[in-house]
């Protein structure tokens, strides 16, 4: 690297253009967002007030899915694609609370997410965390680098939470998932969640978001979401509304369904 290349090649951070990770952090009640993110976040909230419940339901699904995987399924290796900005109950925290030796690889392509992840998503001394700067479509790079931390001859849980919506059908999300799973051992798992197009107001709000931010989002039908699990054995209760997947006793009253679904499938 020559003297000035680092400065010139430094990835850009543009606080004036809303970015999915920061807007999502805003809806989750985090503190890592800029005025432009809050503006589009508020606009979407005005069109679809349940967006904050959807974000929180997705986060809660992540917690339950990881607890199932680290607990009942005995998984000790996680490949978390589309990490997002750190918030409460991140994948490694949930997994390592149950099994401190768990090894987690976080993948994201946003420079801001990566610096926050490296600083704040740090492992227990018994386990390991690593961070890969890659687009989720670049499966070759993801797998090569993840192999430094994960042993692919043993089961791995592939976590894809709220991320397949970030790639359009033309980029074939099903083949991205297929390529990542293809190198994984029998007994590996896919945990996947995303928004679905079952709510008209949600779909309209997403369209507004897409016209005003750096990233676009593509909620799919429940059937398409279930299709991502083709070839896998679905864990009960299947691909369902986020709050219904192995819901745990809660003191909060059921505030109704959100247009988001998730499931966990096992590679035979």
């Amino acid at each position: 690297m020559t003297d000035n290349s680092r400065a010139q090649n430094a990835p850009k951070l543009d606080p004036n253009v809303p970015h999915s990770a920061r807007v999502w952090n805003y809806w989750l009640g985090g503190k890592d967002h800029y005025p432009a993110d809050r503006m589009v976040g508020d606009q979407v909230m005005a069109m679809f007030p349940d967006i904050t419940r959807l974000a929180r339901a997705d986060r809660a699904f992540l917690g339950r899915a990881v607890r199932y995987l680290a607990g009942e399924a005995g998984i000790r290796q996680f490949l978390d694609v589309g990490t997002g900005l750190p918030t409460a109950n991140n994948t490694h925290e949930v997994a390592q609370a149950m099994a401190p030796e768990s090894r987690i690889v976080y993948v994201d392509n946003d420079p801001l997410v990566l610096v926050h992840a490296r600083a704040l998503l740090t492992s227990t001394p018994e386990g390991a965390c690593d961070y890969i700067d890659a687009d989720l479509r670049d499966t070759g790079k993801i797998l090569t680098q993840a192999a430094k931390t994960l042993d692919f001859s043993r089961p791995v849980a592939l976590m894809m939470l709220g991320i397949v919506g970030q790639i359009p059908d033309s980029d074939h999300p099903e083949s991205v998932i297929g390529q990542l799973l293809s190198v994984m051992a029998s007994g590996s798992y896919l945990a996947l969640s995303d928004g679905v197009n079952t709510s008209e107001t949600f779909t309209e709000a997403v369209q507004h978001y897409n016209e005003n931010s750096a990233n676009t989002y593509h909620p799919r039908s429940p059937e398409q979401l279930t299709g991502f699990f083709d070839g896998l054995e679905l864990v009960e209760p299947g691909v369902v509304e986020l709050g219904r997947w192995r819901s745990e006793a809660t003191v909060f009253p059921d505030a109704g369904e959100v247009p988001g679904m998730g499931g966990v499938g096992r590679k035979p």
Partner: protein
Amino acid sequence: MISDREERGEPVHAFTRAFSSGTLVGVPSGPTVPRIALGTQLRRLREASNLTTAQAAETIRATHSKISRLERGRTAARPRDVADLLSLYGVTDEAEREKLLALTRSASTPGWWQQYSDILPRWLELYIGLEKGASVIRTYEVQFVHGLMQTEDYARAVILISKANASAEEVERRVSLRMQRQQLLTQPSAPDLWAVLDEAALCRSPDGPDVMRAQLRHMLLLTDLPNVTLQIVPFDVGSHAAAGGPFTILRFPEPDLPDVVYLEQLNSAVYIDQPDDVTDYMTVMDRLCIQAATGAASKDKLSGLLRQI
């Protein structure tokens, strides 16, 4: 000044309410963050019940200005008063009441640093109280290693630079205060320390090569802690995001407390919690972290420097 802003209907934030735009009027010593957090919640609950400060004052047999001081976090509250206020505000859930009463108790426990009141100016005492309540401490330093990462000898040398005329006893008390502050990093539920340091600070020892070698070794050890990250801004980055001087951003675990920016000056400090201003500093800090070497590369850099001096 603050009440003017409130009268104009402009938003006033928790910390500004507590310490009047950094002028620190009437800020008592002791645990700062629990007090401000409690005050903020009491105010939210009172407003949700559509009660005035005068109505709340009646319940606890006090003046409305006492309620106002409580809500601003300027005075510690008695558990019995808080219990009465919670009943008035209709908070009946036992778990919720206990959470706020626990906050009340921790807000009235004296801070360990109060034994140093003879050498501790108010502007710094407030910082130590805030630092203790933080969940993430992000710093950018240019000339010196951050106080939480200094060895005893390095700290003594830095203190002597600014306090050349202080007695030996005073210098030692200042060193001991700084060392005690560092226990924060290894206690249960320790905050994350995320430090960005200009390479220049590593090339300029305050007291010769031995002190610097020990300081570099100490930083290598500290960065083995899962809650400590050090990112060095190498010389080859050229001109970078931080056009100004050093600054610190404190984040608190309480959802309704905003981040606070701390700017230390020679013999005073500025505290910023207005969202637009905080955002400017957060943008600079985020850009710096993206431009700086990663934590892993920075450790290599420390090891390299250690071999050179």
